């Protein structure tokens, strides 16, 4: 009797578990353990050990709002890492459906955490450019021609930090947060043809195909989906104690929280599936005994 009731569990009970498993980890930090994988460690080491104060990094926002839960924490972690090391950041957006709005909101959020930063000296946002592949090729010759002004309409010639940044040769590293094919172009076009080191942060769904580029050394690091992002968060938090405080801010969404949600909801689903099968088999055996 009881078993039967479990068999026909109201689906709303399952929904309740899923909802709780999503909301609670967003509010309270749990921080389930995550092991650091080599591609993420490579990305971290590249910025930590091979870049120095004053170097310029290009951060390209190649994703839109629909994959923001996965890509945005990566962008935040990279920006925080770079700013903590006083590395200069040039932000661009090549994704047509909302890449720019993501770039603006994430940049504003992170910059507010670093009061010493000055726009145009420590970082700049060049805005969105249509026709990603053509823009990528052209930037090898002259970034100023691809982006004549920044996102606020200021000519690049009047922006202090852009005076020394003419093309890829003046940039030490490119970081792309990508949802579609644009991330691949950074690896198989920009890196392959112009030799600019590239780190890609793709969504989990498209992560597998990037391993080939990583193996072919067309990339110097890879953050696969939320899991990769949460690993990177752990690395920067361990290295920079002041970022640990930032990451503990209530009300801030982080990949660690997102990954907690993923793990917990996956486990809830698995638990229900197992429960269903256990009940199914015990229920199946009983009538036989009765007979």
């Amino acid at each position, binding site marked *: 009797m009881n078993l039967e009731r479990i068999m026909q569990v109201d689906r709303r009970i399952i929904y309740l578990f899923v909802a709780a498993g999503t909301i609670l980890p967003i509010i309270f930090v749990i921080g389930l353990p995550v092991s650091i994988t080599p591609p993420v460690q490579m990305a971290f080491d590249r910025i930590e050990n091979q870049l120095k104060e004053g170097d310029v990094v290009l951060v390209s926002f190649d994703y839109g709002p629909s994959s923001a839960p996965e890509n945005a924490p990566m962008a935040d972690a990279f920006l925080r890492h770079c700013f903590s090391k006083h590395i200069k950041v040039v932000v661009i957006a090549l994704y047509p459906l909302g890449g720019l709005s993501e770039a603006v909101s994430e940049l504003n959020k992170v910059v507010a955490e670093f009061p010493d930063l000055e726009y145009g000296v420590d970082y700049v946002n060049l805005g969105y450019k249509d026709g990603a592949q053509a823009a990528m090729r052209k930037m090898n010759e002259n970034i100023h021609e691809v982006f004549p002004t920044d996102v606020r309409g200021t000519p690049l010639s009047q922006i202090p930090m852009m005076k020394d940044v003419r093309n890829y040769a003046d940039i030490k590293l490119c970081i792309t947060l990508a949802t579609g094919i644009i991330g691949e172009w950074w690896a198989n*076009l920009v*890196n*392959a*043809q*112009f030799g600019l080191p590239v780190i890609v942060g793709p969504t989990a769904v498209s992560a597998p195909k990037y391993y080939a580029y990583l193996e072919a050394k067309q990339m110097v690091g890879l953050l696969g989906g939320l899991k990769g992002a949460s690993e990177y968060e752990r690395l920067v938090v361990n290295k920079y104690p002041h970022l640990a405080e930032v990451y503990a801010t209530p009300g801030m969404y982080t990949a660690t929280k997102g990954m907690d949600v993923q793990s917990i909801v996956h486990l809830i689903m698995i638990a229900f599936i197992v429960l269903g099968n256990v009940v199914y088999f015990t229920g199946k055996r009983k009538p036989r005994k009765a007979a």
Partner: protein
Amino acid sequence: MPVSSRNRVFCLSLAAVLLAVIPLLVFSARVDGQPPPEQTGAAGAAEAAPVAESAAVQPPVVEGLTAADTPGDEGGSMTVKWTEPSDAAQLGLKYKVMRADSPDGQYAEVCELAAGESKYMDAGLTDGKQYCYKVLSVVGPSVAESTPTLPAFPRGNWFRMFRLNALVLLIVFSGSVLFYIARARGGKPMYIRKIAGLNAVDEAVGRATEMGKKILYIPGIMSIDEIQTIASLAILGHVAKLSAQYNADLEVPNKDPLTFASAQETVKEAYLEAGRPDLYREEMVNYVTYDQFAYTASVTGKMVREKPAANFLIGSFYAESLLLAETGQSVGAIQISGTAEVAQLPFFVVACDYTLIGEELYAASAYLSREPVLMGSIKGQDLTKLLLMLALGLGVILESFGLTYVKDAFRMQ
């Protein structure tokens, strides 16, 4: 029904067109006779090597330079090819492709390429005009110049030789389908294996009639440019005919306006054919909205409110597949689904009573109608499938012995 002469004309004219094209192609292939240009891009290129420090390095002269009309294009372009020097990558070599009207004319730069490239397609030229090319190899300030190519001119072509395999497949496929259709017309009985989901169609419609509840038919969310939608409309024709015969309550909500227009015609005709045009109502086939999720919200809302006895989810579906199927399941409807969208099949299989998987969806209209002509076309497609399986087996065997003929034939491009 008697064999329509018009249809025979269609089949014959199709065959005639195909046959007439072949000699033309073979002829033009001889003239073109060159493999197609590959996409430029350095997907497989090695890691870019650092540019050589010393400027004193003398770049190697590019050899084996040829320029010819780009084969299989609509004209206006030339393809330049050369042999890449073995040390190109180490030297950080760059190529400058130069163009002139005559071998000793004024050469102008067309483009610059990095090491790893040995081919360039020069587009935007004038058909019938003569062009010559040179390639400069550059390392730092030093330049070496190749000998110029012989003059050649671009032109439009009549056949894409590199698609010969597709043409062969088209001919084999159309040939076998049309052959079996003709044979079916001749009265030869055809056998098709049982398809579980389709045997349940009658049962589902009958159940809805008994319960006095609605039948919901969802023809996917794509337009009629998608073949799955056309297959779905064919099945809809059958379901609508049954509904007319049983006087069941059918509703077809639509996301795409052209599919909506088509579905209206289909259902109206089915009621007419069943001899019950009086039962047909305009509201049976209705339009909801063009947004995938707004449509889903409306239809799932309808499901929980009206609790249909049978849901048909047949056609091209995307993320809404599970939203619809799971809601339908929760209201206890008997659910028959069918799609060829590989990514959505798992959700239908999990949440529906029967699922038409991929090819079964297309075979359904033949199976349901039992019309010899349609059954013949299934036979024809089975024959092609058998031939492809044999080719696959042969390809695997040859590949195992290191022979790649068959595999290459399957991807000429």
